[in-house]
C-alpha cells in the first residue's frame, strides 16, 4: 500500500511540477463555467424579429413580448439582416398602416406565422386567456443535461490521458526499466498509476455539479457512474501509454480514442432508441447514456447497476484482449 501511494504521490508531484495537473483540473472547470453562462442563453431561445425603426412604438413593444427584437433603418437593412444565416423575421409598417412580413424562405413556418399572429393579435387581444400553463417541475434543461454529462465524460477521459502521458514520459526517461529491478510488483505499479485516474474525475465531477448548481442530481449515482466510467479511461490510459513509443504516437492514439468517445456520446444523445443497439459494444456508450440519465434524473439504481455491469464486462474484455501488450509495454 505504501509503495502504491508513493507512485501516486510521484505522479501527482511530477504533474504539479509541470502544471499539467493544474491544467487538467482547470480545463473542465473553465468549460463548466462557460457552460454556466451559456445555458441560460440557450434556455432563453425565442423568436427573433428585425423591426423597422419607423414602426409604431406599441407594435415594437408587442413584438418584444414574444421574442428578441432588433431595430433597423429601412427595408434594405431589414432584407440584409433577414438574409443572414440565422432565423429572423423582418417586419415593416407601410404608410397605409398595414404591415410587410419579410422572410428568407428557409425559416420555420411557425416562426413566420407567429409574426402574423402578433400583428393580428394587436387588434383583438384576450383570446390567449383561454390558455393556462403548468409544469412538471423539471429544473434542468436538455442543454444542461448534455452539457454537464459531456463535461463529466471529458473530465473522466482527461484522467486517463494523465496516466497515458505519465507512462510515455516514464518510457522516454527509461524509469520503467529502472523500476523492474526494485521490489515493486507490476500490479502495484499498475494500481499506483491508476489512482490518479479515479481521484481526478471524482474531484472534477463534484466541482461540475457545484458550479452548475445541479442540486437535484443524485450525487451517489453520479459518483458510481463516474468511478465505473473511470475504469474505461484508466484502461485506455494504459493502452495509450504502452502502445505509444513517444508523445506524438500517444496523441495520435488519443485522437483515435476520441473518435470512439464522440461516436458513443453523440450516438447515445442523438440516435433514435432503436438504433442504440449498434453502440452496445462500446463501454463508452453505457457511460454516456448512464451519465445523461443520471443528470436528467431519469434513472433508477437497478439501471445504474445494469450499466455498471456492462461497463465493467466490456472494459474487462478490452483489458483481456490487450493484457499481454500492457504487461509487455510496462517492462
Amino acid at each position, binding site marked *: 500500500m505504501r509503495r502504491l501511494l508513493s507512485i501516486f504521490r510521484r505522479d501527482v508531484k511530477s504533474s504539479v511540477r*509541470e502544471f*499539467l495537473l493544474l*491544467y487538467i483540473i*482547470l480545463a473542465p472547470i473553465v468549460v463548466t463555467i462557460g457552460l454556466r453562462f451559456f445555458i441560460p*442563453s440557450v*434556455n*432563453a*431561445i*425565442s*423568436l427573433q424579429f428585425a423591426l423597422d425603426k419607423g414602426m409604431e412604438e406599441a407594435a415594437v413593444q408587442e413584438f418584444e*413580448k*414574444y*421574442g428578441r427584437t432588433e431595430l433597423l433603418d429601412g427595408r434594405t437593412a431589414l432584407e440584409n439582416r433577414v*438574409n443572414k*444565416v*440565422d*432565423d*429572423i423575421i423582418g417586419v415593416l409598417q407601410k404608410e397605409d398602416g*398595414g*404591415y*410587410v*412580413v419579410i*422572410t*428568407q*424562405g*428557409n425559416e*420555420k413556418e*411557425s416562426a413566420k406565422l*407567429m409574426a*402574423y*399572429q402578433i400583428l*393580428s*393579435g394587436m387588434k*383583438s387581444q384576450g383570446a*390567449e386567456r*383561454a*390558455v*393556462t*400553463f*403548468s*409544469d*412538471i417541475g423539471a*429544473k*434542468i*434543461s436538455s442543454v444542461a443535461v448534455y452539457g454537464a454529462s459531456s463535461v463529466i465524460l*471529458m473530465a473522466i477521459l*482527461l484522467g486517463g*490521458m494523465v496516466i497515458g502521458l505519465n507512462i510515455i514520459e516514464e518510457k522516454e526517461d527509461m524509469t520503467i526499466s529502472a523500476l523492474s529491478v526494485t521490489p515493486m510488483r507490476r500490479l502495484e505499479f499498475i494500481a499506483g498509476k491508476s489512482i490518479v485516474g479515479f481521484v481526478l474525475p471524482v474531484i472534477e465531477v463534484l466541482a461540475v455539479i457545484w458550479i452548475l448548481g445541479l442540486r437535484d442530481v443524485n450525487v451517489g449515482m453520479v459518483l458510481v457512474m463516474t468511478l465505473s466510467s473511470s475504469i474505461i479511461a484508466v484502461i485506455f490510459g494504459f493502452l495509450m501509454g504502452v502502445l505509444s513509443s513517444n*508523445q*506524438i504516437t500517444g*496523441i*495520435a*492514439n*488519443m*485522437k483515435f480514442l476520441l*473518435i470512439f468517445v464522440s*461516436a458513443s456520446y453523440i450516438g447515445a444523445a*442523438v440516435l433514435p432508441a432503436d438504433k442504440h443497439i*449498434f453502440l452496445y459494444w462500446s463501454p463508452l456508450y453505457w457511460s454516456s447514456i448512464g451519465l445523461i440519465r443520471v443528470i436528467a434524473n*431519469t434513472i433508477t439504481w437497478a439501471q445504474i447497476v445494469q450499466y455498471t455491469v456492462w461497463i465493467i464486462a466490456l472494459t474487462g474484455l478490452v483489458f483481456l484482449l490487450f493484457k499481454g501488450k500492457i504487461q509487455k509495454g510496462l517492462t
Partner: protein
Amino acid sequence: MKRLFGLLKKDALVAFRNYFFLIMLIAAFLLIIAADFLIPEKASMDAKVLYTTEGQQSDKAKLLLGMLESEEGAKRADSKAQIIDSMKKDKNTIGIVVRQQNGEPAVEILLQGYENEKSKRALALSFGAALNPQNVDYSSIEDVVLQQSTGINDIPLNKSFVPLMIFVEPVMLGFIFLATLIFMEKEEGTIKAYLVSPIRIGEYLISKVVVMLLLALISTILITSFTVGLQVNWLLLLLTVAAGSIFGSTLAMFIASLFDSLSKAMVWLIVTSLVLTVPMAAYFVPSFSPRAVTIMPTYNLLFAIREAIFPSGSSMIIYQNIGGLLAMSIILYGASTLIYKRSLLRD
C-alpha cells in the same frame, strides 16, 4: 520552393509513420457509416407534443384537435398522467390538455419548468388564435419571401449532418495533429538545427499547415462523396474546408507556441476545440444566435460548408468566411512565427 518541398515530404512522412493518415481514414469511414446507415433520413429535432382531451369537446375544440392531429411530431395520449410520465422520461416533450371550461374550450399547456416567459406567451398566442379563428385577420399583412426556394428545409436529416461531420473531423483535424508535430521536433531538438540551416522558421511552420490541409481535403472528399454524392460545388467546398483547416492549424500553432510541452498545450487545445464547436448548437436551432456565438469564426464556417454542399443561393457567406478565416490565419501565423523565433533565440 525546393526547401519547402523537402520539408513537406519530411512532414508528410512523419504524419504517415505516426498513423495520422490511417486515423483520418478510419474517422472518415466511421462518419460515412453513421451518415449512411445510422442516422435516420427523417426525424424531427423539434419538441415532441403530446395531447389529450378531458370531457366532451365543442366544435371549436374539435377544430383545434384536428390541427394537432395533422401536426408532425404530435401524438395523442390517453390521459394527462400519461403525458406527465412521458415528459419526465423525455425532456424534449411538452403536453397539451384540451377541456371545456364555462362552456368554452380551454387549453392547459404542460411544460417542463425551465421554459422562458417569451416562449410561453408565444404558445398562448398561437393556441388563442387556434381557438378563436374568427378573430384572426391577416388581410393587412403583405408577405415577402426573399428566396422562393432555398431547399434547406428539404435536406434529409442524415445528410444535414454531413457539414457538421466535415467541420468536426477534416477541418479540426490539424488542431490536434499539428501541435504534436511541432513538439516532437522541439523535444528532439531538430527545430534548433533549422536555425543553422537556410530553412526559415516560416517555411518550417507552413510545411506542417500544408500537410494538415492535405489530410483535411482527402477526408472531405471521402466523406462528401460517400454520403451526399458528387453533385456538390467542389471548388467552393474545398476552398471553404481549406480556409477552415488553415485557420485551425494556425490557431493550434499559436496555442502550441505558448507552451513548452505537448501535454500542457494539449489540455488547452482540447478546451479551445470544444469552445470552437459551440456554434454547432446554432446549426440545428438557427434562431439561437447570441453575439458571443455569431462572432466565433466557426459560426460562419459551419454555415459556409453547408452552403457549399447544399447551395441555397447565399454564396456570399462562403466568400466572407474564406476571407475572414484567411485574414485571421495570417495574423496567427505571423504571431506564431515571431514567438517561435524569439523562443529559439532565447534557448
